[in-house]
Protein backbone atom coordinates (compact mmCIF):
# COMPACT_ATOMS: atom_id res chain seq x y z
CA UNK A 1 0.00 0.00 0.00
CA UNK A 2 3.00 2.31 0.14
CA UNK A 3 3.14 4.14 -3.18
CA UNK A 4 6.13 5.56 -4.97
CA UNK A 5 5.03 9.16 -5.09
CA UNK A 6 6.54 11.77 -2.84
CA UNK A 7 5.00 12.52 0.53
CA UNK A 8 3.79 15.89 -0.75
CA UNK A 9 2.19 14.29 -3.79
CA UNK A 10 0.28 11.69 -1.82
CA UNK A 11 -3.38 12.25 -1.20
CA UNK A 12 -5.10 11.43 2.09
CA UNK A 13 -4.91 7.86 3.30
CA UNK A 14 -8.07 6.04 2.17
CA UNK A 15 -7.20 2.38 2.59
CA UNK A 16 -5.34 0.28 5.11
CA UNK A 17 -3.75 -3.05 4.32
CA UNK A 18 -4.13 -5.50 7.22
CA UNK A 19 -2.86 -8.92 6.21
CA UNK A 20 -4.07 -11.64 8.58
CA UNK A 21 -2.58 -15.08 8.88
CA UNK A 22 -3.51 -17.62 11.52
CA UNK A 23 -2.17 -21.16 11.81
CA UNK A 24 -4.31 -24.02 13.00
CA UNK A 25 -4.16 -27.71 13.59
CA UNK A 26 -7.10 -29.31 11.83
CA UNK A 27 -8.78 -32.62 12.45
CA UNK A 28 -11.80 -33.85 10.51
CA UNK A 29 -12.72 -36.14 13.41
CA UNK A 30 -12.90 -39.89 13.72
CA UNK A 31 -15.71 -40.70 11.29
CA UNK A 32 -14.39 -38.57 8.43
CA UNK A 33 -10.95 -40.02 9.01
CA UNK A 34 -12.42 -43.46 8.20
CA UNK A 35 -13.66 -42.05 4.90
CA UNK A 36 -10.34 -40.34 4.17
CA UNK A 37 -8.27 -43.45 4.98
CA UNK A 38 -10.53 -45.33 2.59
CA UNK A 39 -9.69 -42.85 -0.14
CA UNK A 40 -6.01 -43.48 0.51
CA UNK A 41 -6.73 -47.13 -0.31
CA UNK A 42 -8.86 -46.32 -3.36
CA UNK A 43 -12.11 -47.20 -1.58
CA UNK A 44 -15.25 -45.27 -0.62
CA UNK A 45 -16.04 -45.85 3.05
CA UNK A 46 -19.32 -44.72 4.55
CA UNK A 47 -21.12 -45.21 7.84
CA UNK A 48 -24.60 -46.46 8.63
CA UNK A 49 -27.01 -44.89 11.12
CA UNK A 50 -28.03 -47.51 13.73
CA UNK A 51 -31.47 -45.92 13.97
CA UNK A 52 -32.67 -45.21 10.43
CA UNK A 53 -30.23 -47.48 8.57
CA UNK A 54 -29.20 -44.79 6.07
CA UNK A 55 -25.63 -44.88 4.80
CA UNK A 56 -23.71 -41.61 4.76
CA UNK A 57 -20.59 -41.08 2.70
CA UNK A 58 -18.70 -39.29 4.02
CA UNK A 59 -20.08 -39.48 7.53
CA UNK A 60 -19.29 -36.64 9.90
CA UNK A 61 -19.88 -38.94 12.83
CA UNK A 62 -23.59 -38.45 13.36
CA UNK A 63 -26.81 -39.20 11.58
CA UNK A 64 -27.94 -35.67 10.64
CA UNK A 65 -31.62 -36.47 11.17
CA UNK A 66 -31.40 -38.70 14.26
CA UNK A 67 -28.47 -37.02 16.01
CA UNK A 68 -26.89 -40.34 17.03
CA UNK A 69 -23.38 -41.63 16.28
CA UNK A 70 -22.92 -43.57 13.05
CA UNK A 71 -20.73 -46.43 14.15
CA UNK A 72 -20.92 -49.17 11.49
CA UNK A 73 -18.39 -48.77 8.67
CA UNK A 74 -19.73 -49.65 5.21
CA UNK A 75 -17.69 -50.00 2.02
CA UNK A 76 -19.47 -48.63 -1.02
CA UNK A 77 -19.30 -49.40 -4.71
CA UNK A 78 -17.02 -47.65 -7.16
CA UNK A 79 -20.01 -46.85 -9.36
CA UNK A 80 -22.98 -44.57 -8.95
CA UNK A 81 -25.61 -42.40 -10.58
CA UNK A 82 -25.55 -38.73 -11.57
CA UNK A 83 -28.59 -37.31 -9.82
CA UNK A 84 -28.15 -33.74 -11.04
CA UNK A 85 -25.34 -31.56 -12.35
CA UNK A 86 -24.22 -28.22 -13.69
CA UNK A 87 -21.63 -27.21 -16.25
CA UNK A 88 -19.06 -24.87 -14.76
CA UNK A 89 -18.04 -22.17 -17.17
CA UNK A 90 -16.65 -19.56 -14.83
CA UNK A 91 -13.05 -19.22 -13.72
CA UNK A 92 -12.48 -18.58 -10.01
CA UNK A 93 -9.61 -18.53 -7.55
CA UNK A 94 -8.42 -21.99 -6.54
CA UNK A 95 -9.83 -23.69 -9.63
CA UNK A 96 -7.53 -26.25 -11.21
CA UNK A 97 -9.60 -27.67 -14.07
CA UNK A 98 -9.98 -26.29 -17.57
CA UNK A 99 -13.46 -24.83 -18.17
CA UNK A 100 -16.07 -25.79 -19.21
CA UNK A 101 -16.46 -28.91 -17.11
CA UNK A 102 -19.22 -30.91 -15.47
CA UNK A 103 -19.85 -30.86 -11.76
CA UNK A 104 -22.37 -33.50 -10.70
CA UNK A 105 -24.05 -34.90 -7.63
CA UNK A 106 -23.04 -38.56 -7.63
CA UNK A 107 -25.03 -41.13 -5.63
CA UNK A 108 -22.77 -44.14 -5.07
CA UNK A 109 -24.51 -47.50 -5.13
CA UNK A 110 -25.31 -48.41 -1.54
CA UNK A 111 -25.22 -44.81 -0.27
CA UNK A 112 -28.14 -42.63 0.79
CA UNK A 113 -26.48 -39.30 0.12
CA UNK A 114 -24.90 -37.94 -3.05
CA UNK A 115 -21.73 -35.87 -3.11
CA UNK A 116 -20.27 -33.48 -5.62
CA UNK A 117 -17.84 -34.88 -8.16
CA UNK A 118 -16.13 -33.94 -11.39
CA UNK A 119 -17.28 -35.77 -14.54
CA UNK A 120 -14.79 -36.25 -17.41
CA UNK A 121 -14.35 -38.31 -20.58
CA UNK A 122 -17.67 -37.06 -21.94
CA UNK A 123 -18.55 -33.89 -23.89
CA UNK A 124 -20.31 -31.38 -21.61
CA UNK A 125 -23.47 -31.45 -23.75
CA UNK A 126 -23.88 -35.22 -23.38
CA UNK A 127 -24.18 -35.35 -19.59
CA UNK A 128 -27.64 -36.15 -18.29
CA UNK A 129 -29.46 -36.87 -15.06
CA UNK A 130 -29.46 -40.60 -14.35
CA UNK A 131 -26.18 -41.31 -16.13
CA UNK A 132 -24.20 -44.16 -14.57
CA UNK A 133 -20.61 -43.26 -13.70
CA UNK A 134 -17.55 -44.87 -12.17
CA UNK A 135 -14.71 -43.39 -10.15
CA UNK A 136 -11.29 -43.06 -11.74
CA UNK A 137 -8.55 -42.95 -9.12
CA UNK A 138 -5.09 -41.44 -9.28
CA UNK A 139 -2.13 -43.82 -9.59
CA UNK A 140 -1.70 -45.98 -6.53
CA UNK A 141 1.50 -44.22 -5.55
CA UNK A 142 -0.35 -40.91 -5.49
CA UNK A 143 -3.29 -42.02 -3.32
CA UNK A 144 -3.72 -39.81 -0.25
CA UNK A 145 -6.40 -39.43 2.45
CA UNK A 146 -8.15 -36.76 0.40
CA UNK A 147 -10.82 -36.50 -2.26
CA UNK A 148 -7.96 -35.51 -4.54
CA UNK A 149 -7.40 -39.29 -4.78
CA UNK A 150 -10.49 -39.46 -6.98
CA UNK A 151 -9.33 -38.05 -10.32
CA UNK A 152 -12.88 -37.84 -11.60
CA UNK A 153 -15.91 -39.92 -12.53
CA UNK A 154 -16.55 -41.12 -16.07
CA UNK A 155 -19.47 -42.86 -17.79
CA UNK A 156 -19.51 -46.53 -16.81
CA UNK A 157 -21.32 -47.63 -19.97
CA UNK A 158 -24.29 -49.04 -18.07
CA UNK A 159 -27.81 -47.97 -19.10
CA UNK A 160 -29.11 -44.83 -17.41
CA UNK A 161 -30.80 -45.25 -14.04
CA UNK A 162 -34.55 -44.82 -13.85
CA UNK A 163 -35.60 -41.36 -12.54
CA UNK A 164 -37.69 -43.02 -9.83
CA UNK A 165 -34.57 -44.72 -8.44
CA UNK A 166 -32.78 -41.47 -7.57
CA UNK A 167 -35.40 -38.72 -7.50
CA UNK A 168 -35.19 -38.57 -3.70
CA UNK A 169 -31.49 -37.83 -3.87
CA UNK A 170 -31.48 -34.72 -6.04
Amino acid at each position, binding site marked *: *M*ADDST*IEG*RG*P*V*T*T*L*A*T*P*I*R*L*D*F*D*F*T*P*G*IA*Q*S*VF*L*RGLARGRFMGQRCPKCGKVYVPSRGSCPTDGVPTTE*DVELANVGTVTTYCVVNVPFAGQSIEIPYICAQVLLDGANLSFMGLIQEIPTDEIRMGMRVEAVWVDEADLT*PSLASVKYFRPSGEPDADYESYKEYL
Partner: protein
Amino acid sequence: MAEHEALHASHVLEYPYSRSVGPVIGAFLTGLREGRLTGVRGAGGSVIVPPTEYDPTTGEDTGELVEVGPGGVVETWAWVEQPLPKQPLDHPFAWALIRLDGADTALLHVVDAGDPGSIATGDRVTVRFRPEADRVGSMADIEAFVPEGSA
Protein backbone atom coordinates in the same frame (compact mmCIF):
# COMPACT_ATOMS: atom_id res chain seq x y z
CA MET B 1 -7.51 -49.19 16.37
CA ALA B 2 -5.77 -47.07 13.75
CA GLU B 3 -8.82 -47.08 11.51
CA HIS B 4 -10.69 -45.13 14.16
CA GLU B 5 -8.11 -42.51 14.98
CA ALA B 6 -8.44 -38.99 13.70
CA LEU B 7 -6.19 -37.59 11.00
CA HIS B 8 -4.55 -34.21 11.48
CA ALA B 9 -3.18 -31.54 9.19
CA SER B 10 -2.00 -27.99 9.46
CA HIS B 11 -4.42 -25.35 8.26
CA VAL B 12 -3.56 -21.77 7.36
CA LEU B 13 -6.22 -19.07 7.34
CA GLU B 14 -4.72 -16.17 5.46
CA TYR B 15 -6.03 -13.13 3.62
CA PRO B 16 -4.54 -9.72 2.77
CA TYR B 17 -7.49 -7.63 3.89
CA SER B 18 -7.69 -4.16 2.40
CA ARG B 19 -9.89 -1.78 4.36
CA SER B 20 -11.35 1.53 3.33
CA VAL B 21 -10.99 3.78 6.36
CA GLY B 22 -13.39 6.68 5.82
CA PRO B 23 -12.70 10.33 6.59
CA VAL B 24 -11.95 10.27 10.34
CA ILE B 25 -9.63 7.27 10.60
CA GLY B 26 -8.22 8.47 7.28
CA ALA B 27 -7.33 11.85 8.81
CA PHE B 28 -5.52 10.17 11.70
CA LEU B 29 -3.58 7.81 9.44
CA THR B 30 -2.72 10.63 7.04
CA GLY B 31 -1.46 12.57 10.06
CA LEU B 32 0.73 9.66 11.14
CA ARG B 33 2.24 9.52 7.68
CA GLU B 34 3.05 13.19 8.05
CA GLY B 35 4.39 12.75 11.59
CA ARG B 36 1.40 14.27 13.42
CA LEU B 37 -1.02 12.93 16.02
CA THR B 38 -4.67 13.80 15.57
CA GLY B 39 -7.74 13.64 17.79
CA VAL B 40 -11.36 14.50 17.27
CA ARG B 41 -13.70 16.53 19.41
CA GLY B 42 -16.68 14.65 20.84
CA ALA B 43 -20.16 16.07 21.32
CA GLY B 44 -19.36 17.03 24.92
CA GLY B 45 -16.15 18.78 23.95
CA SER B 46 -13.78 16.02 25.03
CA VAL B 47 -10.94 15.09 22.69
CA ILE B 48 -10.91 11.47 21.54
CA VAL B 49 -7.66 9.80 20.47
CA PRO B 50 -7.43 7.83 18.27
CA PRO B 51 -10.33 9.56 16.57
CA THR B 52 -13.51 7.78 15.50
CA GLU B 53 -16.63 8.91 13.65
CA TYR B 54 -18.52 8.46 16.90
CA ASP B 55 -18.11 9.29 20.57
CA PRO B 56 -16.87 6.09 22.27
CA THR B 57 -19.44 6.41 25.05
CA THR B 58 -22.55 8.03 23.61
CA GLY B 59 -22.31 7.09 19.93
CA GLU B 60 -22.95 10.72 18.93
CA ASP B 61 -21.19 12.09 15.85
CA THR B 62 -17.81 13.62 16.52
CA GLY B 63 -16.71 17.00 15.18
CA GLU B 64 -13.53 18.88 14.39
CA LEU B 65 -10.09 17.34 14.21
CA VAL B 66 -7.48 18.66 16.65
CA GLU B 67 -3.76 18.07 16.95
CA VAL B 68 -2.57 16.28 20.11
CA GLY B 69 0.72 15.03 21.60
CA PRO B 70 3.49 14.35 20.77
CA GLY B 71 3.97 13.69 24.49
CA GLY B 72 1.63 12.05 26.92
CA VAL B 73 1.18 10.21 30.20
CA VAL B 74 1.20 6.46 30.81
CA GLU B 75 -2.15 5.52 32.37
CA THR B 76 -1.38 1.83 32.71
CA TRP B 77 1.18 -0.56 31.25
CA ALA B 78 2.09 -4.23 30.99
CA TRP B 79 5.57 -5.63 30.51
CA VAL B 80 6.17 -8.16 27.74
CA GLU B 81 9.36 -10.09 28.27
CA GLN B 82 8.76 -12.38 25.28
CA PRO B 83 7.06 -10.56 22.40
CA LEU B 84 4.82 -12.61 20.12
CA PRO B 85 5.97 -12.80 16.50
CA LYS B 86 3.48 -10.30 15.05
CA GLN B 87 3.93 -7.64 17.73
CA PRO B 88 5.57 -4.28 16.96
CA LEU B 89 8.91 -4.84 18.69
CA ASP B 90 11.07 -7.95 18.76
CA HIS B 91 12.69 -7.16 22.11
CA PRO B 92 11.08 -6.73 25.55
CA PHE B 93 8.68 -3.78 25.69
CA ALA B 94 5.62 -2.42 27.46
CA TRP B 95 2.11 -2.17 26.12
CA ALA B 96 0.65 1.05 27.46
CA LEU B 97 -2.46 3.16 27.43
CA ILE B 98 -1.12 6.65 26.81
CA ARG B 99 -3.15 9.81 27.28
CA LEU B 100 -1.59 12.26 24.87
CA ASP B 101 -1.33 15.93 25.74
CA GLY B 102 -4.61 17.54 24.78
CA ALA B 103 -6.56 14.26 24.76
CA ASP B 104 -9.25 12.96 27.11
CA THR B 105 -8.96 9.29 26.14
CA ALA B 106 -5.92 7.05 25.98
CA LEU B 107 -4.27 5.43 22.97
CA LEU B 108 -2.89 1.87 23.01
CA HIS B 109 0.64 1.45 21.73
CA VAL B 110 4.03 0.15 22.81
CA VAL B 111 6.68 1.85 24.92
CA ASP B 112 10.27 0.97 24.13
CA ALA B 113 11.49 1.42 27.68
CA GLY B 114 14.38 -1.03 27.77
CA ASP B 115 13.54 -2.71 31.06
CA PRO B 116 10.51 -2.89 33.35
CA GLY B 117 12.21 -0.69 35.90
CA SER B 118 12.21 2.21 33.45
CA ILE B 119 8.45 2.66 33.16
CA ALA B 120 5.73 3.43 35.68
CA THR B 121 2.16 4.63 35.65
CA GLY B 122 2.15 8.41 35.44
CA ASP B 123 5.44 8.57 33.51
CA ARG B 124 5.68 10.93 30.59
CA VAL B 125 6.46 9.43 27.20
CA THR B 126 6.77 10.84 23.71
CA VAL B 127 6.19 9.46 20.25
CA ARG B 128 8.97 8.03 18.07
CA PHE B 129 7.88 7.87 14.45
CA ARG B 130 9.43 5.67 11.81
CA PRO B 131 11.57 7.45 9.25
CA GLU B 132 9.37 9.48 6.91
CA ALA B 133 10.14 7.31 3.89
CA ASP B 134 8.90 4.20 5.71
CA ARG B 135 5.57 5.65 6.81
CA VAL B 136 2.53 4.36 4.94
CA GLY B 137 -0.43 5.60 6.95
CA SER B 138 -0.91 2.94 9.62
CA MET B 139 -0.51 2.51 13.38
CA ALA B 140 2.90 1.03 12.69
CA ASP B 141 4.08 4.47 11.49
CA ILE B 142 4.57 5.00 15.21
CA GLU B 143 7.58 2.83 15.91
CA ALA B 144 7.04 3.17 19.65
CA PHE B 145 6.65 5.67 22.43
CA VAL B 146 9.74 6.29 24.54
CA PRO B 147 10.30 7.77 28.00
CA GLU B 148 10.40 11.55 27.67
CA GLY B 149 13.93 12.84 27.56
CA SER B 150 15.32 9.66 26.04
CA ALA B 151 14.05 10.29 22.49
